[in-house]
């Protein structure tokens, strides 16, 4: 056991756990951030996607010792800035408007994969968006509405 320190959604966090504890378990069990979901637990479904130093990763595949000193962003962090205004993140709004969430289990991970794509300046191009969320399985929507929602928020290529 030893302490691991990192930033979660802009706030410092410190946990005293085994270095091989999954980031997913630290977020859900130790920090109470249950927005991140466990789907398959083996890096197939993307439900547990979070941003690690801005890159989308499956938190079920990241041991906490590798998170020391790094920046984690979860679905709870998406609306953090917006919530002060009583709002959701524009991406979350777009998911609502387009009916991009049904049962909801994939939604937090889908939002984070989409956020990574948008933060990297991804264009509203269907093919590119589909590649960006290819690691996130959804069994309800058929993806079309999710792709539409992401495209609605993406900035057109200048």
């Amino acid at each position, binding site marked *: 056991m030893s302490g691991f320190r990192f930033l979660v959604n802009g706030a410092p966090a410190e946990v005293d*756990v*085994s*270095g*091989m*504890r*999954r980031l997913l*378990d630290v977020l859900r069990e130790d920090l109470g951030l249950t927005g991140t979901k466990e789907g398959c*637990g*083996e*890096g*197939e479904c*993307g439900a547990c*996607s979070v941003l*690690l130093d801005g*890159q*989308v*990763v*499956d938190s*079920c*595949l*990241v*041991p906490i*010792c*590798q998170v*020391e000193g790094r920046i984690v962003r979860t679905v709870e962090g998406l609306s953090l800035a917006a919530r002060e205004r009583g709002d959701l993140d524009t991406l979350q709004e777009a998911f609502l408007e387009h009916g991009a969430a049904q049962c909801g289990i994939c939604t937090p991970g889908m939002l984070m*994969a989409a956020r*990574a*794509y948008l933060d990297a300046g991804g264009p509203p191009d269907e093919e590119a968006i589909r*590649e*960006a*969320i*290819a*690691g*996130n*399985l959804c069994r309800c929507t058929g993806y079309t509405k999710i792709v539409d929602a992401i495209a609605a928020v993406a900035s057109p290529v200048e």
Partner: protein
Amino acid sequence: MPAEPPIDVPLHLFEAYERLAVRPAPVPIAGGTDIMVRITGELGEIPARMLDLSRVTALKGITLDTGALVLGAATTYTEIRRSALCRAHLPALVEAAATIGAAQIQNRGTLGGNIANASPAGDTLPILLAADARILVGGQRGEREIQASEFFTGYRQTALAADELILHVTFPLPAGREIRFRKVGTRRAQAISKVVLALAWRGGGPSFGWSDVRVALGSVAATPIRAAATEAVLEGARPTPEVADRAAETLAGELVPIDDVRSTAEYRRMVAGRVLHRLLREAGGW
């Protein structure tokens, strides 16, 4: 909850070597895309001890050496895809990296991990074989270089000793060499290959045949393999329709794949032949 075996986090290579020299040797982890699945206990034995490689900077980096591209073992697939050096000198590896998993896996999974995991379906491995890559490994006993063609010794078995780490991979860049890559899976992302093929050759213009032909495949045997009989058909030949027919037929006859959950032996033989035929047709421009 998955097991949480003890893990050491060395900052330097010599510290990692020290930890690996202890028996039983800890299991190294870099991107974790294969190893983290093992701590669930659903896929064989849970490692007793782990060794984190993520802080060892000596394992990172992509450099152009004299006539060769050198990739640190901890280079991620995303880094390969974004690397201007890889795009310019080894586009087939960039293509292979793009077919592995999806963004979440590419951001974490490493070239060295793909090699050490030694899955017969490892998507970069046929590229290593086709490119005559050399794998530098090291430990307290010193460093040694292993030819990719001699690295995979059996089903998930490698020439790497328990006290050694993969340090970097050297891809020679001979003049005029071309490499083509094709992966066939159930879907484009997140799919483990049914057949994966890399074809390399050096061309000598219209009046000369191909030389140094390599045909390397994954998912069709216990290890990534080269297809020697098919290479012999193509060596000195040119990619004409007749040559392509003969090479594809030879390949389908040469392979001895198995039936498993992802595909059948029959399908793999047929598709490997078709994929090679397609690559030859593209190379021949007909």
